[in-house]
C-alpha cells in the first residue's frame, strides 16, 4: 500500500481499532482533558473553543447583514452597529482565524506528521491554550460589559482618546491571546527542529509541516509588535500620557505602522497553513506527487519573509510619504509572485491526476478559485492610484474575505474533512459533505462578489446607512450570508452524527502517504506503537517510473487490498 515507512508494516498486525487504547480513551474524566499535555487533546480543546468564537463572530455579522438589507439604519442603533462589526472583526481575526488551522490541526497533526511522540514543550502547549482562554474571557467580558466600537484595528486617536467603549479589556484580550500564539509558534519551531523521526530530512517534510514552520516564524516575529502596540495605545488611554496624540506631538501614523507590521503578516498566519492543507489534499485525491516540492517550500519561506515588507499598503491614503507608497506598492507586487507560483504548482499537480472529487478535494478546489481571485484583487488594491479610489470601500472588504474566508476557512473545512477520520476514527456521510462543500462555495460567492461591485461603485465600508442604489447588492450579500450560514451549520450536523453512527475509518481511509496515516485512527496516546522510519520524500502516490495511474485507490479498493 505504501512504501514510505518501515513502521507501516508494523501497525497492520495490531488488533481491531476499538479494542486498543487510544488518546480518547486514555483518561475519560473532564479533569483528564483540562490537565492534558497530549498535543492531540490540546488540539481538540482549541477546536472546541474556536468553534464557540466562530459562532459568536458569525451571529454579530448576521445581525449587521440583516440591518443592511435596507438603506435606512433601522434594526440596531448606530452605536450597536459599530460594536457589532468590531466584535465580528476582533473575534474572527484573533479568536478564530489566527488559531484556526495551526492551533487545531497543527497541534494535532504536526507531531504525527514528523513521527514524534508530542510537541517539544507539552506543558507550554497547554499553557498556550489557557492563555487563549484567559484572553477569550477578557473579550467576552468586554462584550458583556457593553462592547467596543473602534473596529478591529483599534486606530488611534479614536481608540486612545475618544471611544467610550471598553477598549482596554478588548485590547487586553488580544494581547493575552497573542502570547498564546507566540508560545504555540516557538513550540512548533522547536518541535520541527528537534523531534523529526529518523530519515525525516528537511526536504522530506510534508508541506503542511513547512507551512506550520513558516507560520510559526511569522507568529513569533510579528505578534510581539502587536502586543507592544496595544500596550502603548492602552497606556495612552489609561494614563493619559502622550504617545500617538497629534495634539501633543505624537504621530497617529506610527500606530498604523506598528499595527500593520503585525497585521499584514497576520494574513499569512491565516493563509500559509491553508496552503499546507491544500498541498496535502490535492496530492492525495489526485494521486500525484506535488509539482515542484522544493519550489513550494521556498515560496512559503519567501511569503513569510517578504510578507513583512508590504504593510504600508494599508496606509496609502493615510498620509504616508509618496516614496513609501511606491516602495510598499512594489513590495506588495513582489509578494504576489510566490503565491502565484504556488497556484500554478497546485494546478500542475492536478494535471493528469487520477482525481476523485471527495469533499476535502472540493473544499480545496474552492480554495484555489477563491484564493486566486482574492489575490488578484489584492494586486488591484496594491496599485496606489486604484487604492485611492477603492480604499475603505466594500471592495477591500470583499478582497480580504476572499483571502481569509474563501481561502483560509475553505481550507479549514477541507482539513476538517480530510483528517476527521484520523481524529475521531469515524467516516462522515460523503454525500452530505460534498453538498456542504458546494453550498459553501456558492454561498460565499453570493455573499462577497456583490461587495466587489458595490465597493467599486463607491459603497464605503463600515457605514450603517447607505444610498438606495446599493440596496440590491446588500440584499444579495445578505441572502448569500444565509446560504453560507447553512453551509457552515451542515457539517456540524453530519460530523456529530458520524461520531455515533459513522463507519469505522481504519488507519488510512484515503490511502494517503503521510506518517499520520501510518498509525491507528484515533491514534494511541504516544502516536506510534513503533517509531516510524522515513525512507523517501513525501507524496509517493506513484512510483518514479510509472504514471499516476499505477496505484489508483479505486483499483485497490476493487481488489480489496484496502
Amino acid at each position: 500500500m505504501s512504501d514510505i515507512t518501515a513502521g507501516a508494516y508494523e501497525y497492520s498486525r495490531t488488533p481491531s481499532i476499538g479494542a486498543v487504547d487510544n488518546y480518547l480513551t486514555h483518561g475519560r474524566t473532564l479533569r483528564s482533558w483540562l490537565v492534558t499535555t497530549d498535543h492531540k487533546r490540546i488540539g481538540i480543546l482549541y477546536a472546541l473553543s474556536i468553534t464557540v468564537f466562530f459562532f459568536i463572530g458569525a451571529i454579530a455579522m448576521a445581525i449587521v447583514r440583516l440591518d443592511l438589507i435596507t438603506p435606512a439604519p433601522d434594526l440596531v442603533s448606530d452605536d450597536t452597529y459599530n460594536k457589532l462589526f468590531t466584535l465580528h472583526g476582533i473575534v474572527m481575526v484573533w479568536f478564530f482565524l489566527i488559531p484556526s488551522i495551526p492551533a487545531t490541526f497543527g497541534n494535532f497533526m504536526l507531531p504525527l506528521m514528523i513521527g514524534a511522540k508530542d510537541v517539544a514543550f507539552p506543558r507550554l502547549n497547554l499553557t498556550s491554550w489557557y492563555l487563549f482562554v484567559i484572553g477569550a474571557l477578557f473579550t467576552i467580558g468586554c462584550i458583556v460589559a457593553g462592547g467596543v466600537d473602534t473596529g478591529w484595528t483599534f486606530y488611534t486617536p479614536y481608540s486612545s482618546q475618544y471611544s467610550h467603549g471598553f477598549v482596554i479589556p478588548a485590547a487586553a484580550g488580544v494581547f493575552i491571546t497573542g502570547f498564546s500564539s507566540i508560545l504555540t509558534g516557538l513550540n512548533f519551531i522547536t518541535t520541527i527542529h528537534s523531534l523529526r523521526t529518523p530519515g525525516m530530512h528537511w526536504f522530506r517534510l510534508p508541506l503542511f509541516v513547512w507551512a506550520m514552520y513558516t507560520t510559526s516564524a511569522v507568529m513569533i516575529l510579528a505578534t510581539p509588535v502587536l502586543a507592544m502596540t496595544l500596550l502603548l495605545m492602552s497606556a495612552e488611554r489609561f494614563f493619559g500620557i502622550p504617545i500617538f496624540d497629534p495634539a501633543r506631538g505624537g504621530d497617529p501614523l506610527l500606530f498604523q505602522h506598528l499595527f500593520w507590521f503585525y497585521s499584514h503578516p497576520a494574513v499569512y498566519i491565516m493563509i500559509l497553513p491553508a496552503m499546507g492543507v491544500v498541498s496535502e489534499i490535492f496530492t492525495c485525491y489526485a494521486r500525484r506527487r506535488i509539482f515542484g516540492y522544493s519550489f513550494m517550500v521556498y515560496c512559503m519561506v519567501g511569503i513569510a519573509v517578504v510578507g513583512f515588507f508590504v504593510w504600508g499598503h494599508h496606509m496609502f491614503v493615510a498620509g504616508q510619504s509618496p516614496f513609501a507608497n511606491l516602495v510598499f506598492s512594489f513590495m506588495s507586487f513582489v509578494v504576489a509572485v510566490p503565491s502565484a507560483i504556488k497556484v500554478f504548482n497546485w494546478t500542475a499537480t492536478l494535471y493528469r491526476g487520477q482525481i476523485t472529487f471527495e469533499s476535502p478535494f472540493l473544499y480545496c478546489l474552492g480554495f484555489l478559485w477563491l484564493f486566486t481571485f482574492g489575490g488578484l484583487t489584492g494586486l488591484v488594491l496594491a496599485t496606489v492610484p486604484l487604492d485611492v479610489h477603492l480604499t475603505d470601500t466594500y471592495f477591500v472588504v470583499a478582497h480580504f474575505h476572499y483571502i481569509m474566508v474563501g481561502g483560509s476557512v475553505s481550507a479549514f473545512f477541507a482539513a476538517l474533512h480530510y483528517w476527521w477520520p484520523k481524529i475521531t476514527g469515524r467516516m462522515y456521510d460523503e454525500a452530505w459533505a460534498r453538498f456542504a462543500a458546494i453550498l459553501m462555495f456558492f454561498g460565499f460567492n453570493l455573499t462577497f462578489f456583490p461587495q466587489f461591485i458595490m465597493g467599486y461603485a463607491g459603497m464605503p465600508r463600515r457605514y450603517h446607512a447607505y444610498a438606495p442604489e446599493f440596496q440590491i447588492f446588500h440584499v444579495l450579500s445578505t441572502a448569500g450570508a444565509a446560504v453560507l450560514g447553512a453551509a457552515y451549520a451542515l457539517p456540524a450536523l453530519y460530523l456529530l452524527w458520524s461520531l455515533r453512527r459513522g463507519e469505522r475509518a481504519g488507519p488510512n481511509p484515503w490511502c494517503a502517504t503521510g506518517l499520520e496515516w501510518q498509525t491507528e485512527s484515533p491514534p494511541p496516546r504516544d502516536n506510534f506503537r513503533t517509531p516510524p522510519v522515513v525512507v523517501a520524500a513525501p507524496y509517493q502516490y506513484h512510483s518514479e517510473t510509472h504514471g499516476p495511474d499505477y496505484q489508483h485507490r479505486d483499483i485497490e479498493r476493487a481488489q480489496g487490498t484496502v
Partner: protein
Amino acid sequence: MPSVALREPWQDLGHQRNSAVLGMWLFLGTEILFFGGIFAGYSVYRFLHTADFLAAGRETNIYYGSVNTLVLLVSSFVMSLGSRAARAGLFRFARLCFPVTAVLGMVFLTLKGFEYNDDLEKHLFPGASGFPLPEAGAGLFWAFYWVATVVHTIHLTVGIGAVFRLQILSRDDPQWLNDSPSAEVTSLYWHFVDCIWVFLYALIYLPGRS
C-alpha cells in the same frame, strides 16, 4: 535511573537541553520585537523632535541610571558564573551565585523605586498636570521613559522569580542544576533583560548631556 529533570517527550538530557535553549532563544527573538515597538516609537519621535528629546533627556537622573547600569552588569557577571558553575558541577558555588544575582536585581528595583519617587516629585509624569517641560517632544520622551522602564522592570521581576526558582528546585537535589536546562535558560533570560537595559540607558539617560 533516569534523572527527574528528564521530561516528556525527550529521551536524553542533552537533546532536551539543546531544545530548551533553542526555545528560549526563540522567545528572546520575540522579546526583541516586543521591546522593538518601544525602540521604534522612540526613534521616530526622536527623529521628529530631536531638540526636545535632548532637553527632556537632560531631566533624567543620571546617578540612578548609571549606578543601576553597573548593578545590572555585575548581576549578569554573577549569573554567568552561576550557570557555568552549574554546568561544571560546582553546585555549592552555583547556589551561592544565584541568590547574589537575585539580590542585585532587587537592588536595581529598589533604586528604581527611589528614582520613580523623585521623578514624580518633579512632576515628570506627562499624563498628569504640572508637567514642567514645555517642549512638545518632551512629553513624548517621558511617556516612553515610563513605558520602557516599567516594562523592563516587570521583566526583571520575572527574572528574579526565575532565579529564586532555581534555588528552590535545587535545594534537595543540586544535581538537578546540571541535568535540567533551567539554569542555562534562566541565565539567558537574565542576560537578555540586561541587554535591553544597556540600550535603554543609552537612549534615556545619555541624550542631551553635552
